[in-house]
């Protein structure tokens, strides 16, 4: 092979490798996107099966139940229009409270119970996670309620 051909071959191999790497990366990226859904969307069966996603809303007051092993909990996330039951094993974050905003990540079981692998309440005591606030807001709008919403994201700092 002439040096020029060698160089061309080298460049071609490099481009193919780069393309393959980019393809693999994009594929990995696609499969790692975690979408966010509201309890209303869960009720409308818009959520993917067998794939992790996040749901957000308020922890329904009085819904927190501790299971027999003491470490598992069951609670209900609501966007005031629809509810989703959540099962979680582990320690809840410090800021987890009934009536406050929460975001959970996990998969929806066939029985309609959301099995959370992670519960997030990363915000200060009065602050609402934007995702949770968004879910509640949307549900309220969908219910076409004319009065002011419970949670106004602009003032809940």
């Amino acid at each position: 092979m002439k040096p020029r051909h060698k160089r061309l071959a080298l460049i071609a191999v490099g481009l193919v490798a780069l393309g393959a790497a980019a393809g693999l990366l994009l594929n990995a990226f696609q499969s790692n996107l975690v979408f966010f859904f509201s309890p209303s969307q869960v009720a409308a069966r818009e959520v993917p099966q067998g794939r992790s996603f996040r749901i957000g809303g308020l922890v329904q007051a009085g819904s927190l139940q501790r299971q027999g092993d003491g470490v598992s909990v069951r609670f209900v996330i609501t966007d005031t229009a629809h509810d989703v039951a959540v099962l979680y094993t582990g320690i809840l974050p410090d800021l987890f409270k009934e009536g406050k905003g929460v975001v959970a990540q996990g998969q929806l079981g066939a029985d309609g119970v959301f099995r959370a692998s992670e519960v997030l309440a990363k915000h200060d005591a009065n602050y609402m996670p934007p995702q949770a606030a968004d879910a509640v807001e949307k549900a309220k709008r969908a219910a076409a309620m004319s009065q002011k919403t419970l949670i106004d994201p602009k003032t809940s700092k």
Partner: protein
Amino acid sequence: MIPELGHFALIVALCIACVQALVPLLGAQRGDSNWMALARPAAQGQFVFVAMAFTCLAWSFVSNDFSVLNVASNSNSMLPLRYRFAATWGSHEGSLLLWVLMLNLWMTAVSVFSRRLPGEMVARILAVMAMISIGFLLFLLFTSNPFERLLPPAADGRDLNPLLQDPGMVIHPPMLYMGYVGFSVAFAFAIAALIGGRLDATWARWSRPWTTMAWAFLTVGIALGSGWAYYVLGWGGWWFWDPVENASFMPWLVGTALIHSLAVTEKRGGFKLWTVLLAISTFSLSLLGTFLVRSGVLTSVHAFATDPRRGIFILAFLALVIGASLLLFAWRAPKVGLGGLFALVSREVALLVNNVLLVAAAALVLLGTLFPLFHEVLGYGKLSVGLPWFEITFPVVMVPAVLLMGIGPLLRWKEGKLGASALRLKWAGGLAIVGAVVVPVMMGGWSILVAMGILLAVWVAAAGFANLAGRIAQLRTSTGASASAALRHLPRGYWGMLVAHLGVAVFIVGVTLVRGYEVEKDVRMNPGDTVTAGGYQFRLEGLKPVQGPNYDATRAVVSVTRNQRSVTTLYPEKRFFTVQQMPMTEAAIDSGLTRDLYVSLGEPLADGAWIVRVYYKPFVDWIWGGAFLMALGGIIAVTDRRYRAARRYERSLVADATIPVAQGTG
């Protein structure tokens, strides 16, 4: 009165910054030495006023002046003194003032330690830094005045966020900002060189110690933040790929590429444009990080401040800085010549591949951090990028870079011999393979990931020693010196490289072993119960209420034994901060060279039992130890004699060439 004084000082600083940004720059263009000479006093004067403003704010916090809105919202009379002081940068406004203070510190440092630089270079560097300063001072004064008054004054403050009431808060932000903002010096050097058209090896030699120093600060800052998250969040994790963490990690990655690329520019005159581009990118990523954290566009632990107006200001500033510097780059780049030629097997190529990999890693992190933002802004709904994205792709890119770290420093500049270098590394390679087989078995279970991690770590460390042994042998044959004399003869820059690379090896050991062998248990415990983790028995002896300065707490007493021998007693707490009505988990950790024992309290159950989280974390402290070694390596390299010697040499050249300047400045 004090707050108004601080406000006034900021305005004066802004005026000085405007003069400093304009006059020396024009002076450098016109060759007017008097105008150029204004740069140094202006920089130092600006520093005095910014420091004064900062002192005024700190004073308001320390003396509990609740007529200042910032103090009333972020402090409390019951808050201990050190946190009242640290609360100065606990708020959005305060942390930006800290940003400007750090910028001024670096600026003053440049004005003091640049006696040997040509006057026009100094004038341009300080002018560029003043422009950055103007941007942030305007931002402070118009959107985030830290001295805003509250009328009528509050009786007491709303207290500092409990998460921030930690010794980490006193030291982590200043360190991190020192690093972040320090890259503005590298940026200013690059822009000054582009304006002046002087982009050569000497420029790289001037720029290198500053860049390395900023990088070392950033390394320490990130490590401190990671360690803080490890014990304060009570989850025992040390890195979450949280957008705020990524915001500081991206400049670190590109900054690491920059310090390696500067090496090529200094030693071989090559990669000049690439180096300039990296300097611009590093600082732009620092600004992007500031935007991400300070605009409140992210949902995360750190996003305490939310105000879209501020976000738009920083975004516009970011666009201006990046746009203007890239325009300048495009205009000036064609005039820059190429460096020396090099073969396919050479240190240049090794460093080039290292650069490409580091930048690719930064791009992966950038994609994972910004994609959710774009997705939402474009109206496609909210989503997040899962942890596996970072945890799989990042190592895939970094593993080749680490493998290359072993062989790169052994290759010669210009044209290396792969065979000869590989031969010198046969022991290192053998040791790495033996380590990969033996260490995981010794730790209690072989797995491919642990084997890979140990392989990389031993490879990097052993290759470093092989490199050192080779250099000593070479010196002894060429000069006939003894081994100890040869050791002393080696330059600091070389030692710095070895120490920093050893730091990478130590870091990898920590990450690998804690990943592979940590034990994590969330259990329900009554007083008297025992749980076993990693061969240690944790016994909950009892619980008692404790009163803190601004919180009430429940403190557990957990005794730890191993083989019937007492190891330690841990006191984890669950605190309840009375002003903010917020609970906080205070983990108790027994640190050791080979393991951490970590206990934190979950929540109380009905019958006096608690949910307790017990961790056994082998070698976790090596993660931060490795990071500190990297930073230490950087600091050792900065003290290299050649930077000082080179400056002396430069001065003699400059003095000959520009006598009028010397006369002008007196």
